[in-house]
C-alpha cells in the first residue's frame, strides 16, 4: 500500500507542471548564470557574508548590538539553511529516480524494487552533500549554534561561499585545477624537504641549550618559515651543523618559490585565451540583438565595420584562427568556431530567434556559405540569412539551402556599369545618398500611432520646413511604394516615410514627428 502510494506520488511529481515549474524557477535563480535574477540573489548572499564577517571582527574587542548578533547568528544562518535545502532539492530529482526504477522494473516484468531506488537517491544526494561546495554551505550554517564558541569560527566558512557567487573565484579555482598534478608534485617535494630539514635541525640543535629550537614543533615551524623564504629570524640555528642544514633549506626554498610562481604564471598563460573566450561568450549571451557574421574576409570586414559604425552589435565566427585574430585586431567580437557545426552555436549559447537580427554568410567560397547556411537553417527556420554568391552556377544551391537574400558581386558590377555609362551624375547622387560618410542621406522613418494621430495625411507632415525631401511612402500593408504622394494621402501605422536630407535635419524632423502634441 505504502509502496503504491510512494510510486503514485513520484509519478505525480514527475508529471506535475506546477511542481516542475517551481523547481525550474529555483534551479534558475540559484544555478543558471543566464537568469536575470541570479545576480541579485548572488549580490544579496555576498552582502550577508560580509555582514557576518564584519560582526565576527567587531565582536573580538567590542560589544555588538544584540539585534545585529541575532541577525548574524539566526537570520543569516536561516537564510543559508534555506539555500542549502533548496540546492539539495534541485541538485537531483528523487521522483525521477523512483519513476526510472519503476519503469525499468516494469519493463523487465519484475516487482518494483523501491529499496534500490532509495539507495540510488541516497547515493546521489550524499554525493552532493559531500561535495566541497555543499560542505562549505553546511559549515556556513553551523554558527547558528553560536553558543559553541568553536562553531563561531565557522563564520569564516561563509567567506568560502564567495566561490559560489563570484565568477572570478571559480575561474581562479578552475585555472589552478589544471595544474593539479604539478601542485601535488610541488607539495610532496616541499613536504619531504620540510620533514627532512625539521628532523635534521631538531637532531642538530635540540640538545644545545643555546639554541632556540628545542622541540620538534619548533623545528617544523623553523623549517616552514625558512623554506617559504619568509625567515622571521625569531629562531636561528646556532651550531655549524644546524647552519649547514639552514643553507640546504634556503636553497630548496628558492626552488620551491620559483616553481610555485612559474606554476601560477603558466597556468594563467595557458588558460588566458580560454578565460577571455568564456567572458566573450558570456557577453554575447547578454546581447539583446546582433548580426552574426560567418567568415571574416574582405567583404565581411567592411560589412562588419559599416554595421558596427551605425551602432549595431556584430559577432564574427570563423573556423580559421588567423582570420579571427585579424577580426579581433580590427576591434570586433570574434570567436574561433566553425560556422558549419551545430555544436558551435550550442557552445556559444546563441538564441537564433531572440538575439540574431540576421546571419551573414560572407565567406568568399560558396561551399562554405551553403554549409553554414544549412547548419543555421537546421537550428532555426525563420532567421534571416544573407549570403555572398561567388559563382553564379551555385545560385540554386544557395536558394535551396534556405538563404533569404543572395548578393552576387559580379552581377552588381554589371548593373553599376550599365547605370554609370547612362547617368553618371545621377548615379553618383544616389551613391552619395547611400554612402556612410555623406552629409545628405536617405532614411526611412516608421509611422507610429502617434504620427498618425497628429499627422493623418502626407500634406500635414511639414517636411519642407525641415529641409527634408519626402521621396515617397512605403505602404507596408500593400507592400507598395508611393512615390511623391499627393498631400491627401492618408498615413497608416506601419508605413514608412522615405526621406532625403541632411542627417541632422532628418533627426530634427523625426523628433518633431514623435513629439508634436495632438492639436498643439
Amino acid at each position, binding site marked *: 500500500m505504502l509502496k503504491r502510494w510512494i510510486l503514485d506520488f513520484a509519478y505525480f511529481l514527475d508529471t506535475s507542471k506546477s511542481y516542475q515549474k517551481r523547481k525550474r524557477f529555483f534551479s534558475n535563480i540559484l544555478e543558471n548564470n543566464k537568469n536575470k535574477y541570479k545576480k541579485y540573489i548572488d549580490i544579496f548572499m555576498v552582502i550577508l557574508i560580509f555582514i557576518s564577517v564584519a560582526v565576527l571582527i567587531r565582536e573580538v574587542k567590542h560589544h555588538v548590538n544584540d539585534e545585529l548578533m541575532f541577525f548574524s547568528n539566526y537570520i543569516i544562518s536561516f537564510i543559508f539553511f534555506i539555500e542549502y535545502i533548496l540546492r539539495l532539492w534541485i541538485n537531483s530529482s528523487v521522483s525521477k529516480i523512483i519513476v526510472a526504477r519503476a519503469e525499468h522494473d516494469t519493463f523487465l516484468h519484475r516487482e518494483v524494487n523501491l529499496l534500490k531506488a532509495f539507495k540510488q537517491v541516497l547515493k546521489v544526494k550524499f554525493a552532493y552533500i559531500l561535495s566541497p561546495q555543499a560542505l562549505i554551505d553546511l559549515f556556513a550554517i553551523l554558527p547558528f549554534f553560536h553558543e559553541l564558541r568553536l562553531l563561531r569560527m565557522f563564520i569564516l566558512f561563509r567567506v568560502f561561499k564567495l566561490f559560489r557567487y563570484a565568477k572570478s573565484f571559480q575561474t581562479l579555482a578552475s585555472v589552478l585545477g589544471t595544474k593539479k598534478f604539478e601542485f601535488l608534485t610541488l607539495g610532496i617535494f616541499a613536504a619531504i624537504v620540510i620533514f627532512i630539514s625539521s628532523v635534521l635541525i631538531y637532531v642538530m640543535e635540540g640538545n644545545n641549550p643555546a639554541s632556540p629550537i628545542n622541540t620538534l614543533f619548533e623545528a617544523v615551524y623553523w623549517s616552514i618559515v625558512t623554506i617559504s623564504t619568509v625567515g622571521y629570524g625569531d629562531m636561528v640555528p646556532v651550531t655549524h651543523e644546524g647552519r649547514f642544514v639552514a643553507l640546504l633549506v634556503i636553497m630548496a626554498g628558492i626552488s620551491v618559490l620559483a616553481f610555485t610562481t612559474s606554476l601560477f604564471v603558466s597556468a594563467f598563460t595557458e588558460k588566458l585565451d580560454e578565460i577571455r573566450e568564456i567572458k566573450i561568450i558570456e557577453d554575447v549571451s547578454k546581447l539583446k540583438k546582433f548580426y552574426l557574421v560567418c567568415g571574416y574576409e574582405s567583404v565581411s570586414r567592411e560589412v562588419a565595420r559599416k554595421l558596427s559604425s551605425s551602432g549595431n552589435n556584430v559577432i564574427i565566427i570563423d573556423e580559421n584562427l588567423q582570420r579571427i585574430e585579424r577580426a579581433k585586431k580590427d576591434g570586433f567580437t570574434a570567436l574561433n568556431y566553425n560556422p558549419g557545426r551545430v555544436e558551435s552555436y550550442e557552445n556559444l549559447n546563441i538564441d537564433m530567434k531572440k538575439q540574431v537580427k540576421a546571419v551573414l554568410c560572407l565567406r568568399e567560397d560558396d561551399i562554405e556559405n551553403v554549409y553554414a547556411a544549412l547548419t543555421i537553417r537546421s537550428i532555426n527556420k525563420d532567421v534571416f540569412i544573407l549570403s555572398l554568391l561567388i559563382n*553564379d552556377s551555385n545560385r540554386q544551391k544557395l536558394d535551396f539551402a534556405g538563404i533569404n537574400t543572395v548578393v552576387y558581386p*559580379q552581377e552588381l558590377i*554589371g548593373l553599376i556599369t*550599365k547605370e554609370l555609362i547612362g547617368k553618371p551624375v545621377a548615379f553618383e547622387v544616389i551613391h552619395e545618398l547611400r554612402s556612410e560618410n555623406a552629409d545628405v542621406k536617405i532614411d526611412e522613418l516608421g509611422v507610429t500611432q502617434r504620427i498618425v494621430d497628429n499627422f493623418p495625411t502626407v500634406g500635414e507632415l511639414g517636411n519642407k520646413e525641415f529641409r527634408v525631401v519626402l521621396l515617397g511612402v512605403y505602404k507596408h500593408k500593400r507592400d507598395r511604394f508611393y512615390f511623391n504622394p499627393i498631400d491627401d494621402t492618408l498615413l497608416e501605422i506601419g508605413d514608412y516615410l522615405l526621406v532625403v536630407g*541632411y542627417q541632422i535635419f532628418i533627426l530634427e524632423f523625426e523628433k518633431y514627428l514623435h513629439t508634436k502634441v495632438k492639436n498643439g
Partner: protein
Amino acid sequence: MVKTTALIFGHNKYADEIVANVKDKYEQIRIFSLHEDDVQASETKIEIFDLSDKWTELTKNVDISKSMAFCVLEDTAENIFLTISLRANFKELTIIAVASNSESANKLTMAGANKVIPLVETTSDIIANMLEKPISSKILHSILYEESALKIAQIKINKESHFKDEQLTSIDWTRYNGIIVLSVMHEDMKSEFIYSSKAKHHVIREGDILIVVGYETDIAEFEKKIGSNRYVNWSHWGW
C-alpha cells in the same frame, strides 16, 4: 561625344556581366584577354593584348575618342599597369576600372581611371544598406538597376530653359507634378543637395544639371515644360 565602342580588357565573370548589361548601349564591343587559352575556350570573339604599350593595332580600327575602356583584369597590379598604359597613350579615353578594394581603387584613380568601382566597398555598402535600410535600399535599387517605371534622370539647363537665371529655391517645384528634384550640379562640377544652404541662394545658370526622380512620362513632360533635355557628360566623373 557619344561613345560607340566598348573596350573590355579582361575575360572573366566581371567582363561577362558588363557585356550582358551594356551590349545594347554600344555599336561595337571588343573583348581583350592576356591569355591565349581564353581565345580558344570562348565562344565569343576575344582578342589578345599584352602590357607592352603597343597599341598601334588597336588605334588602327578603333576611334579612341568614341570609345570607353573597362579595365577588369583580376590581377590588381596588372589592372593598374593596364590603366596607366591606356591613360599614357590615350588622353581622351574614358576608363572605368574595377578594383578589389579601396586601396587599389586609389591607385587606379592615380593611374588615370575616370571612374573606379571598388568591389568590396560597393558590395558591403549594398549589404549594409539592405540590412539597415531595407525599404530605401529596395527603392533605390529598383530606380537604379531594375526596369521600374520610376527613373532618375539628369537634365541640363540650356539657353532656352525656363529656369535660367531663376533662384533655385524660388521655383515652385510642385507645379511639375510627379517630379522630385534631388540636387543640382553646377558648371564647376560641384553637386548640391536641393535644400543645402548653398543651393538656397543658387541662381540657375546655363550648363547646370538637375538630378530628378520621377516616372518616365513625368520626366519627359518636365523636360518639355522647362525646355531642357537629359544629358550625359563623361567628364563629370572627375568630381
